[in-house]
């Protein structure tokens, strides 16, 4: 710490700020300081691997700057493998993965960013090489190693697995309709390898850096997996409905909705529900935590919440800019309005046909007018 120019006072301040970040009592500051010390001394090691991802969660994590946990944690956290951060490459880098799995079994945290493709033997996402060789263009070369194989190697020795981002946690965009890669969320793969291995899902597209750092610290302070909701997400960050804490909630209650993007005057703070906001079905603390060091968040920037922290994202919360998700009815996936017009048309046709049938089939009574 001293080498980095961090005094004891500054360090305790960091710990206090981290407690505030996590919404914890000041009484826990010493505990957090201890956890940060442990991080600084290189414990526990972290292996950060990437599946079908866009690296957005890594970028989001690296963007954190208040409290300055990046300097303390990223620099000091023993991240033994991270494709974007590490200097090593090739066999040297993959050797670290294998070495950690063997030597530090039961101690390291495995962070997985992006889901796992399983179709075609997992060939849609590979990194590193297998020991075995296979013919390739007339000569023998080592086979590509799919992430699924890495999971089988790394999961058994992991103390805990963190699925970072919506894609890793729930499949996200790669697992949306008609996935050709056989995408599976991390928890499903882990269950197949080691049923009792704890998996912490940190949703979001991308995930908030506080959610990741907070979860790691929580794990270190309490030495156990934090309290999770039914989807495996830490309740500290995913326990509140966005709609309940939204800065535009008053507009929703007053019935003041934005209905045309051309009227999008931010001063009006009109509710974005009718423009596709999924805040009413999304559990996350975005409205209070905000993004980019508390600068803003989606709704504050006049963009509807897409529900990226939810397991139903993207598949069941799309179309993103439609106010209501589609209705699934008898295998038909469409809007209630379309269903309504079709039913109204069928009713009109039925009534018309019945009326004509009654009229055409009517016998003219004798002496009657018909």
């Amino acid at each position, binding site marked *: 710490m001293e080498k980095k120019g961090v005094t004891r006072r500054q360090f305790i301040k960091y710990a206090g700020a981290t407690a505030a970040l996590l919404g914890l009592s000041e009484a826990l500051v010493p505990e957090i300081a201890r956890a940060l010390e442990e991080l600084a001394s290189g414990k526990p090691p972290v292996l950060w691997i990437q599946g079908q991802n866009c690296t957005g969660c890594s970028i989001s994590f690296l963007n954190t700057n208040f409290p300055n946990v990046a300097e303390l944690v990223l620099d000091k956290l023993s991240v033994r493998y991270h494709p974007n951060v590490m200097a090593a490459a090739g066999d040297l880098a993959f050797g670290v993965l294998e070495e950690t799995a063997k030597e530090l079994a039961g101690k390291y945290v495995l962070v997985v960013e992006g889901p796992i493709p399983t179709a075609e033997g997992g060939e849609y996402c590979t990194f590193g090489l297998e020991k075995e060789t296979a013919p390739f263009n007339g000569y023998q070369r080592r086979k590509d190693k799919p992430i699924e194989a890495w999971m089988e190697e790394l999961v058994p020795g992991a103390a805990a697995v963190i699925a970072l981002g919506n894609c890793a946690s729930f499949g996200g965009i790669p697992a949306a309709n008609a996935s050709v890669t056989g995408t599976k969320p991390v928890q499903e793969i882990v269950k197949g390898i080691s049923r009792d291995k704890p998996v912490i899902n940190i949703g979001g597209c991308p995930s908030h850096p506080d959610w990741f750092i907070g979860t790691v610290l929580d794990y270190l302070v309490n030495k156990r997996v934090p309290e999770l909701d039914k989807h495996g997400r830490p309740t500290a960050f995913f326990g509140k*409905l966005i*709609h309940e804490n939204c800065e535009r909630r008053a507009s929703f*209650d*007053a*019935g*003041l*909705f*934005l*209905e*045309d993007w051309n*009227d999008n005057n931010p001063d*009006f703070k*009109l509710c974005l*529900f009718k423009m596709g906001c*999924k805040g*009413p*079905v999304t559990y996350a603390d975005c409205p209070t935590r905000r993004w980019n060091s508390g600068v803003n968040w989606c709704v504050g920037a006049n963009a509807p919440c897409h529900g990226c922290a939810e397991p139903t994202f993207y598949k069941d919360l799309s179309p993103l800019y439609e*106010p*209501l*998700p589609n*209705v699934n009815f008898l295998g038909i996936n469409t809007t*209630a*309005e379309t*269903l*309504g017009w079709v*039913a*109204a048309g069928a*009713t009109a046709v039925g*009534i018309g046909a*019945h*009326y004509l049938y*009654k*009229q055409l089939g*009517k*016998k003219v*009574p004798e002496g*009657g007018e018909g």
Partner: protein
Amino acid sequence: MRMKEKIRIPGAAKAMYAIYLSALAVSIYLGFNNLHPFLEGWRYPWQMGIAQTLGLFSIWTMALTAGVYIYYATLGKPKGWNEPMGWYRIVLALLAIWYFLLSYAFYLPNSWMKWLNDAFGGIANTWKAYDVFLWVVLLANVIYIYARWTRSERFPRLGARSGEEGV
């Protein structure tokens, strides 16, 4: 020609149906206007305020009328009431009560109907269900009106012949 039986309807039932139908028309109009605005652009707060008040008033009217009707058509049924399709009207009355609960959850999601929002899994799903039931209630009533007309003495005319009551 087989003569249709003379249909007798108590005045109270006629009045209740008239009130129910008026309230239904108002609530469905407002419901569709809420979810699929007929006019482009945003609406003024006073318009939305009136719409919400009218919407709540109409669904309360519907629910109360439906409740009274169910009693009147079952336990308190007057003699001589031989109007056909009584079962359909009971279904409509029950549907109206469900529609009242759903509309309440739609208009005031954090009111005493919060439990229904929770049961649906969130306000967005309540809105979706409300959107669907607007159509269900509308079409169920349109079908009833037509079906009831086919059972009346005046069918296929809209008006009764001179000298006939025609209900």
